[in-house]
């Protein structure tokens, strides 16, 4: 591989040190700059990715041996619940948000998102929800690790740590870690079967949902309204398309889980029985008319689109990366956009495939089996279009490209096992077994996470102004690739051998030992690969190689400004006449290919609009666009003259803090009101304070001058 990853030569200006007032803590707390918010999303998400990974490692160590007792069954149940919840809601979703925030406004040539302060509110509310969800886990983790060390010591006869471990496990709150699984099937979440840990889970997710909704509306308005002149919908970069579609998915999917969670809280504290078929009244079992299956329907109407919420952003990312490193435009651009929309749309019609073993009856089973199979079609088109993009190209294997191709290759495995699960009778064997665990890790790790790593390597120079080390990057990729397959491929075998998920341990007569050992070794190697990545980050922070504006010879607008971009992104809002504006400017007209738009129109079988043949007017417009792009060189010596950006604001943070206190107050007060019946002492002081803060913040926010 002689010609790998040589960044474009270009004038690289070593950035000057910025003033403390621009980079201090206060500036980060009050920032409403979409780029900084994106960075914060990414940093928090990566922290939770590591935390969720740590939880997974304990799970894998526990399963390394039959009848193992590294952690108690209770702790094990807490660990898999928090691993799933953390990875989905606190790692993958905010990582997608990080990229949406940072990249999308740049790609559409905007100065920021439509509602910058709402954007900051989304970020801090996400953090509030994450805190609520993880508060018991944070309190419980020391006890868990002391318990593990103590267990090891006791096996060699040292008991001195037992008392400390018991003390740590007894810290108030340490026994409140959610333990009902990430999809919280009723009636395990009911008061009869669980304690207050469910409240932390439910309120945490409700808070996170608020953050996601606010962010999604923001992105939709931004994409619809703030595109630069000339950027028609069908000239938008495919990642921007993804941002739009995923945001729409979120605002349609989240209400289902929001309602479901509120009903859970009602069931627990208001005396309703939406999800409980039975209740215990004075020691007698009575039927209530509620139905646990209602929860499953509501949850998966959210939960299945959620899968696409997690994986489509990664698809969007690699749809940017593969063309750039193949030096070819994306194959079948419009079809790719439609396929994304089709997956999103069909995603709402397949939820019951999570419920094939609940006894829905043959007709629903067959119908949902068919609808699930349908999703394979647009997904297959995407896979083959990515391959066709590389076909005939001139491929550079940067780390970003390796991860992107890795996604294309590995997602195929997850996709194919997904089709197997649409075959209902086969699913009755695979459902809730390790075959499913293997399947969705191929989708969410081999898919989403590979895509996010690809995006990190790809946009890192734009975000930080520094290039990551490519040698370490390649080591990171290959280690991740090998370790990932070593961990999750054997889980197919475990599933076929009948190992159910969520088993704290298994008997020696089960025949599951071998592949569990292999998977555990693989998981430890995944942990190692994360360390390689962190090493890469710290190394290139200490000894930076500064990045030029467009190190990869990419085509989209984010590469038309400096690395990192100035707060206002573009000194002059660019005008585009082409889907790949920077390539058009650099390589000229032959990049512009008008026939292909016709293909898109007919292929989709619907009218998109009038297709214009290339004419004099467009050529003229095109020339102007090239000039506009060239103008941004001037922006490098910027001082921001004439660009009005909104002021930093403290109110979004204050509002989120208010929400945090309202939620926390509800949780704490609920426990008080349980213990101090009568209610007089259960006045929700904390919630009241939070409410006042939220009101004050929104008031201040509303009357704050914009700039």
């Amino acid at each position, binding site marked *: *591989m002689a010609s790998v990853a040589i960044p474009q030569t270009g004038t690289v200006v070593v950035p000057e040190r910025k003033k403390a007032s621009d980079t201090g803590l206060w500036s980060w707390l009050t920032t409403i700059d979409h780029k900084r918010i994106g960075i914060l999303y990414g940093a928090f998400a990566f922290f939770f990715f590591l935390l969720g990974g740590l939880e997974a490692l304990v799970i894998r160590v526990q399963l390394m041996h039959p009848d193992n007792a590294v952690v108690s*069954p*209770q702790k094990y*149940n807490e660990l898999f619940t928090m691993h799933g919840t953390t990875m989905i809601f606190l790692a993958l979703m905010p990582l997608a948000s990080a990229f949406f925030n940072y990249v999308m406004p740049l790609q559409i040539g905007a100065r920021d998102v439509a509602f910058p302060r709402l954007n900051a509110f989304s970020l801090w509310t996400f953090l509030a929800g994450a805190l609520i969800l993880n508060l018991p886990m944070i309190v419980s983790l020391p006890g868990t690790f002391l318990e593990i060390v103590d267990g090891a010591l006791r096996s060699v006869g040292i008991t001195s740590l037992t008392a400390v471990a018991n003390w740590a496990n007894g810290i108030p709150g340490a026994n409140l870690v959610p333990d009902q*699984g990430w999809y919280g099937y009723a*009636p395990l979440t009911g008061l*009869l*079967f669980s304690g207050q840990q469910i409240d932390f889970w439910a309120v945490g997710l409700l808070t996170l949902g608020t953050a996601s909704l606010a962010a999604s509306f923001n992105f939709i308005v931004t994409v619809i309204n703030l595109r630069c002149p000339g950027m028609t919908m069908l000239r938008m970069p495919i990642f921007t398309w993804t941002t739009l579609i995923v945001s729409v998915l979120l605002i349609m999917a989240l209400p289902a889980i929001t309602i479901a969670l509120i009903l859970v809280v009602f069931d627990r504290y208001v005396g309703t029985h939406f999800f409980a078929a*039975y209740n215990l009244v004075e*020691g007698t*079992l009575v039927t209530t008319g*509620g139905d*646990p*299956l209602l929860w499953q329907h509501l949850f998966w109407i959210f939960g299945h689109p959620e899968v696409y919420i997690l994986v489509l952003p990664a698809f969007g990312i690699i749809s940017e990366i593969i063309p750039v490193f193949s*030096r*070819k435009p994306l194959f*079948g*651009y419009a079809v790719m956009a439609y396929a994304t929309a089709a997956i999103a749309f069909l995603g709402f019609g397949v939820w019951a495939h999570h419920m094939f*073993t609940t*006894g829905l009856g*043959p007709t629903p089973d067959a119908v949902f*089996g068919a609808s699930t199979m349908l999703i*394979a079609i647009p997904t*297959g*088109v995407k896979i*083959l*279009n990515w*391959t*066709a993009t590389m076909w*005939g*190209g*001139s*491929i550079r294997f940067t780390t970003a490209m390796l991860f992107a191709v890795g996604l294309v290759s590995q997602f*195929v495995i997850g996709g*194919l*096992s997904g*089709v*197997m699960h649409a075959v209902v*009778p*086969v699913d*009755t*064997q695979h*459902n*809730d077994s390790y075959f499913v665990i293997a399947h969705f890790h191929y989708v969410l790790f081999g898919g989403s996470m590979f895509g996010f790593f690809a995006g990190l390597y790809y946009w890192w120079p734009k975000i930080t102004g520094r290039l990551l080390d490519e*040698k370490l990057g*390649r080591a990171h990729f*290959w*280690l991740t690739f090998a370790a990932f*397959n070593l961990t999750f*491929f*054997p889980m197919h075998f475990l599933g*076929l*051998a*009948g190992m159910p998920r*969520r088993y704290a341990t*298994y008997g020696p*007569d*089960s*025949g599951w030992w071998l592949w569990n050992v292999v998977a555990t070794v693989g998981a430890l190697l995944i942990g190692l690969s994360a360390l390689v990545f962190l090493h890469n980050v710290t190394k290139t922070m200490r000894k930076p190689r500064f990045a030029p504006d467009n190190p990869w010879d990419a085509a989209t607008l984010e590469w038309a400004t400096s690395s990192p971009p100035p707060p206002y992104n573009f000194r002059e809002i660019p005008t585009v006449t082409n889907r790949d504006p920077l390539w058009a400017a650099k390589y000229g007209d*032959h990049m512009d290919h008008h026939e292909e738009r016709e293909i898109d129109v007919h292929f989709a079988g619907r009218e998109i609009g009038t297709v214009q043949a290339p004419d004099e007017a467009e050529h003229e417009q095109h020339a102007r666009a090239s000039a506009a792009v060239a103008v941004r060189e001037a922006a490098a010596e910027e001082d921001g003259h004439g660009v009005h950006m909104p002021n930093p604001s403290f109110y979004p943070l204050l509002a989120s803090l208010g929400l945090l206190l309202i939620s926390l107050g509800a949780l704490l007060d609920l426990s008080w009101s349980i213990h101090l019946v009568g209610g007089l002492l259960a006045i929700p002081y904390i919630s009241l304070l939070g409410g006042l803060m939220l009101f004050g913040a929104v008031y201040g926010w509303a009357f704050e001058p914009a700039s």
Partner: protein
Amino acid sequence: MRGDGGVRGWLQAWARPRAGRARRFAPLAAVALLTLGVLAGCGGNQPYSTIAPQTAKADDIQWLYALTFWLALAVFIAVQAAIVYAVIRFRRTDDHLPVQVHGSKRLEIAWTIAPAVILLLVFIPTAQVIYKHANAIGTADFRVDVVGKQWWWEITYPDIPANEADAAAGPLITANEVILPLGADVVFDLQTNNVIHSFWVPQLSGKLDLIPGHENLMEFKATTLGDFYGECAEYCGASHAWMRFKVKVVPQADFDAWVKAWRTPPAFDANPETPDVAEAPKSFGVCLVCHNINGTNAKIAKTGITSNPFGIGAGPNLTLLGCRDTIAAGLLVNTEANVETWLKHTDEVKAGVYMPNYYTAGQIDDAKVTELAKYLESLKPAGGCPAAQPVGGVIAPAATPVP
């Protein structure tokens, strides 16, 4: 070895020059690994295997699985080959600008239609099997009621009375082991009144959930003799992993003998000082609130779907306990020593268990624990337990006619 030594050097040296080759071999390695895994699945001792079917129903599922597996493998190889070929063939060699292709109407239509055709090929037999299995429920004639508990299974034979002379005595009830006569066309009535469980005997059938407020029916025809391992497949709380059971398919004569033995009061005289052999030992007094033993005075515990889900007054029926392979739903091998362990360390060995530990509570002492263990192990047929069956099944001998 080159580079600057150490793990990092090794990683770099490994990653750099072989990136392409490793990618080329990746699918090959995956196929090899897959084959290995399938072999391991068939060859090893895997009593929960989903790919060693022992009923016609499980065969249908296996056939569908094989169909999708080979189709998936073909698609997998084709797509990986295309990816690998593309990344090797079209690697950058010089600074040329490739032909700027934006798409191809024909190709994209082709690879929209191709998967649709493949999926149709899969869907038609899928739908056929779904309806075939659903329709089979109506013709099954051997009924077994299963109530999922936290964390064990109550097994009731509603058509087999506990006492032929006394209809009020109710049906035959056992726990954690489903005994079936060879050839029975069984329909399981799956219910629960606590949380959701899932009834799964991989070699005999796919799984089906037990959902509060729902009555789910599962059918298969028991055509192979043997012990088949079953397990709970839906997370149901602390001891989800210890909710195992067995389906034992035995010759009809053995089944009849088992029913007869079940109806016969225990022969072991637990209280020699009293004339009544049907009386459980005095130490059983704390147990009989929850546990019934047929033919004895232990008969007040509640059973069925209306019983209290929290175990108070509704524990497993212990009739013929001495013949069960395990106690506590697969947690411990059924020996006298383990029964003692169970009685003394109930809550330590099974997380969240509803059965109180009367030993630490001081209500039974060591002597009584020993007495109880001896008594429980004595609950066997007069002629001893039936001979052990092979795990995973054997095809019924030709001499045994399969109805």
